[in-house]
């Protein structure tokens, strides 16, 4: 697992607290990206950094899960590949859904309707198909804001 943000250390991601997003919006969005393919992982990292996001990368779902558990409130969004050995993206999504309140984007080279349907019904906030373009990644902050807004609404209601 590699951690890559401006300071080159993991601690910054969690200790700085929630992503405020007001001043440099949406720069500083804290993203965890998971893909067992090293080529794709390197490209995602570069693209996300170019978007001025704070990026942490993992090549295993299990590692990603421990990172998320160790740094509660340390991330704003998770991007995960679907097909990975050991734990796949769907299982990771299920864990994240039950343990944390984070938006998860699934990515795959597979574009069949069935698998996209599966992703959506499992609760992914989006399903992207490789190759992913940087323009798409520039918009992912919307999922974070949408989830926060929805949560706030629920809080007010109840």
């Amino acid at each position, binding site marked *: 697992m590699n951690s890559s943000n401006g300071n080159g250390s993991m601690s910054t991601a969690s200790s700085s607290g929630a992503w405020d997003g007001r001043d440099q919006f949406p720069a500083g969005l804290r993203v965890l990206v998971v893909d067992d393919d090293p*080529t*794709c992982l390197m*490209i995602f990292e570069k693209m996300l950094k170019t978007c001025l996001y704070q990026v942490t990368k993992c090549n295993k779902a299990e590692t990603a899960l421990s990172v998320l558990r160790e740094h509660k409130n340390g991330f704003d969004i998770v991007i995960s590949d679907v097909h990975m*050995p050991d734990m796949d993206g769907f299982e990771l999504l299920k864990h994240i859904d039950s343990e944390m309140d984070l938006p998860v984007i699934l990515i795959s*080279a597979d574009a069949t309707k069935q698998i996209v349907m599966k992703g959506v019904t499992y609760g992914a906030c989006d399903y992207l198909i490789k*190759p992913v*373009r*940087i323009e798409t990644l520039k918009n992912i902050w919307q999922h974070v804001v949408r989830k926060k807004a929805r949560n706030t609404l629920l809080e007010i209601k109840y």
Partner: protein
Amino acid sequence: MDVVNQLQRQFIDYSASLHREGFLDDQFTQLQKLQDDNSPDFVVEVASLFFEDCEKLINNMARALEQQQGVDFKQVDASVHQLKGSSSSIGAMRVKDVCIAFRSFCEAQNREGCLRCLQQVTHEYSLLKNKLQTLFRLQQQILAAGGSIPVVE
């Protein structure tokens, strides 16, 4: 200055031919645009990673297809799927296209078809590797002569 212009001209022409012949698609251009002062060797690094990855996956496929006791097509498909993902992400269009055909043969559990695709994908990978090495060499020559790499749209 003349030398630089000549080299840049060569680079642009060679790049254009790679796109024209289908070796590279727009995704590769996207990666070139990502390269900046923070990561001046980004494209070369990603390409090297891709070639390493490619070789590993091709070996996995070959091993799985060699099994006399019965080919595990799911295993072959898993490797092809990953290669499809990485080749499309780097813009290796011809490699990606072979992967698409390859997956159909895996689904059909057609060993002969798979072996043919394996041969094709190995061939396309070597071709691409040579061509990109030529492209990167041109880049190096331009930089060494004091010029900058033109961005080819």
